[in-house]
């Protein structure tokens, strides 16, 4: 395989990766080309490992990368089968006798395609002679994979297959690709042979089907490489706007990815921030160095101490039926930003309240969420929940603590004991109430949301991922104390 063809493939692969949300910079591309030329394209596994080192920059990217690599550089089609086919072909060439015997047997049904083609040079049928001369036919019959894929690549380029946009265009592009390949010759031959030579006709049809399958694969790949990424982005942004309660189970994987990505974005935006302060331990070397300029008099002091902010978040989630779905996503989000908010404690309640932090530390998030729902789900009682929370965690709340409460504030017409909520507000830095109900519904029926608002620093509606992202973003910038 020539180097240019290889690096073109590589560039297409990189585009493919970008479509799957693996950011590959131009510098990475250069590295990848260099690495590939060092490693060569012969050994698939080595190439895969080598490119992984250059292109996938973290373990979760690596998973996507491996999947993408296998999809893009499909393993050579059934290596063993191919070689055996070639052996058969060469064996047949070596011993013409056996070939004749076989031909003799075939006479019973009709001439084989090969015989016809060999005879065709005599000029019996224009369609057939044309077919015999075409390189495509030779490649197909000889089982020459390399030549075949080369001509498919060339035809794909001529048919502009890479411009495919939508899933529904696949048929159209497959047809165009086949036309460029010169499949019409095969079709003409098939028509010519249909009645006269049934055996040869069947063989031609088989070759046509093989070719069609290859063309379909090629177009499919082009779609995955060039268009699927756009569609994914579209799906993602649509999903972010959907009400969280309406997310169906089959969308969970995508949702999970989306949350992870949003969380990474937020985490890097609010990365660890430290401030140098004017107190603490004296940085002797730095002070003396500065003193050299003032004849040894330590005029400007330098300090070693770097103050670390220790923001703490306590999330209290209503996990009763009506709000459970939202709690799940809030918790998933909060635990996805653990990098920046390492001291998150979570509590769940419906009638009674309990701390569930440990489950999130020890279990995968999804599992922890289902366990929370199982243990604490039920009818809501805010008074009881506040009471439990205050006895459990009130003494741990300080001016660095942000308390988030997620709930619809519907207390089945009993007293929610907002005095307890006021106590929490008085001790913490921020009290945020997230309500999945739209604002117009607040205060209707048994909703105690209107009095609740007075006891919160922020009360806001939160029912899709976009809103959730905005809130966590805000939370981070406040918690990190910009």
């Amino acid at each position: 395989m020539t180097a240019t063809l290889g690096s073109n493939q590589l560039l297409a692969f990189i585009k493919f990766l970008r479509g799957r949300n693996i950011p590959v910079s131009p510098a990475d591309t250069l590295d990848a080309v260099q690495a590939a030329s060092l490693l060569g394209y012969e050994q698939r596994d080595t190439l895969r490992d080598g490119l992984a080192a250059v292109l996938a920059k973290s373990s979760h990217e690596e998973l996507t990368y491996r999947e993408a690599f296998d999809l893009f550089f499909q393993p050579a089609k059934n290596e063993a089968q191919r070689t055996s086919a070639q052996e058969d072909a060469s064996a047949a060439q070596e011993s013409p006798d056996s070939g004749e015997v076989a031909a003799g047997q075939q006479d019973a049904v009709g001439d084989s395609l090969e015989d016809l083609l060999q005879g065709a040079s005599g000029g019996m049928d224009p369609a057939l002679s044309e077919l015999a001369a075409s390189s495509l036919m030779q490649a197909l019959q000889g089982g020459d994979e390399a030549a075949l894929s080369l001509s498919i690549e060339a035809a794909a380029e001529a048919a502009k297959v890479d411009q495919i946009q939508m899933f529904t265009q696949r048929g159209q592009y497959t047809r165009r690709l086949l036309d460029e390949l010169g499949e019409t010759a095969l079709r003409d031959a098939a028509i010519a042979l249909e009645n006269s030579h049934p055996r040869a006709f069947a063989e031609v049809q088989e070759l046509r089907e093989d070719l069609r399958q290859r063309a379909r694969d090629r177009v499919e790949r082009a779609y995955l490489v060039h268009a699927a990424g756009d569609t994914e982005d579209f799906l993602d942004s649509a999903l972010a706007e959907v009400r969280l309660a309406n997310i169906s189970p089959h969308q969970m994987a995508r949702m999970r990815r989306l949350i992870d990505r949003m969380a990474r974005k937020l985490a890097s935006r609010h990365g660890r921030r430290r401030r140098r302060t004017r107190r603490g331990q004296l940085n002797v070397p730095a002070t003396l160095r500065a003193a050299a300029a003032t004849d040894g008099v330590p005029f400007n002091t330098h300090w070693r101490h770097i103050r670390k902010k220790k923001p703490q978040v306590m999330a209290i989630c209503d996990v009763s039926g009506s709000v459970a779905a939202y709690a799940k996503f809030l918790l998933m989000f909060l635990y996805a930003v653990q990098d920046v908010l390492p001291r998150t404690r979570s509590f769940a309640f419906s009638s009674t309240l309990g701390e569930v932090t440990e489950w999130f530390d020890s279990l995968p998030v999804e599992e922890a969420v289902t366990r929370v729902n199982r243990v604490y789900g039920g009818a809501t009682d805010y008074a009881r929940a506040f009471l439990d929370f205050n006895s459990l965690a009130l003494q741990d709340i300080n001016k660095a603590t942000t308390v988030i409460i997620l709930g619809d504030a519907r207390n089945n017409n009993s007293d929610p004991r907002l005095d307890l909520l006021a106590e929490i507000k008085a001790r913490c830095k921020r009290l945020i109430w997230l309500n999945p109900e739209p604002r117009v519904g607040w205060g209707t029926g048994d909703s105690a949301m209107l009095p609740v608002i007075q006891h919160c620093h922020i009360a806001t509606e939160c029912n899709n991922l976009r809103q959730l992202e905005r809130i966590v973003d805000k939370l981070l910038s406040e918690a990190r104390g910009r």
Partner: protein
Amino acid sequence: MDTPLYPQLGDIDAITTAFGDAGYICTPRIATVVYLAAALNKPILVEGPPGVGKTELAKTCAEVIAKPLVRLQCYEGLDEAKALYEWKYGKQLLYTQILKEQLGDILEGAQGLKQSIQRLHSTGDVFYAKEFLEPRPLLRAMEQNDGAVLLIDEIDKADFEFESLLLEVLSDYQVSIPEIGTVQARSKPMVFLTSNDTRDLSDALKRRCLHLHIPFPSIELEGRIVTARVPELQERLGDQLVRFVHAVRELDLKKAPAISETIDWARSLVLLHANELDARLVHDTLNVLLKYEEDIIEAEDQMGKLLKLADVL
């Protein structure tokens, strides 16, 4: 590129063999990345759970290419004075005191401020010369004449700002010292950064490195590693031991046992002259493998199942 600095790393198979001889069993993945790092002059960022041999990889590499290993252990609050260089401020002050008279001599007979300053300038920046510079690990690695292995261990423990400090070193193999200028590496070291993945590293840093993730090994690979490290271990015992450890890793533990712990356990069993694993022996030595009381209790609870998986019962 004329003669390669690290000829031992010029071929993937050669790397596998050389590392194997040094007692480090390379997967093809690791060998490929080490080869690329040497060929492209790029640092390797090694990630993976604790104890899978990240640090060991760098040490073995130093051994294979027979170059010094310069190690920088990262921690919170690490700054350039400890990682890059530091002025020998005491020496500077001492010398200025001692040389006061000399300075007087130089300035003798000078007329006016301008002339004095001119004379002082003619002496150059004597107090900010390399003699007053105390090289720290990063600079020391750059100053090696014919190559070195630089190991920046547990980069995720260092602060965010420190990563930015590393960028210049990692991409251009140079260090900027304001008073002197840019110091180029005399020879480009092989650089290994290790991370336990406790936080995401910055994209800028990742971009400059080749990424290598070392997971827990397969049973077969771990068996080979243990045999390479503890050759005295009997084959049957080694087999049981590795299977047992793999079964333990499946449990719901606070800290899964790493390769280093498997090796420690194998050594302990050799010391105890064990020929075969049994419930009693495991019970007595489990604390070598597991480091939390809860984990040990959990493993004891499941002992029957574990031993069965380890092919003992």
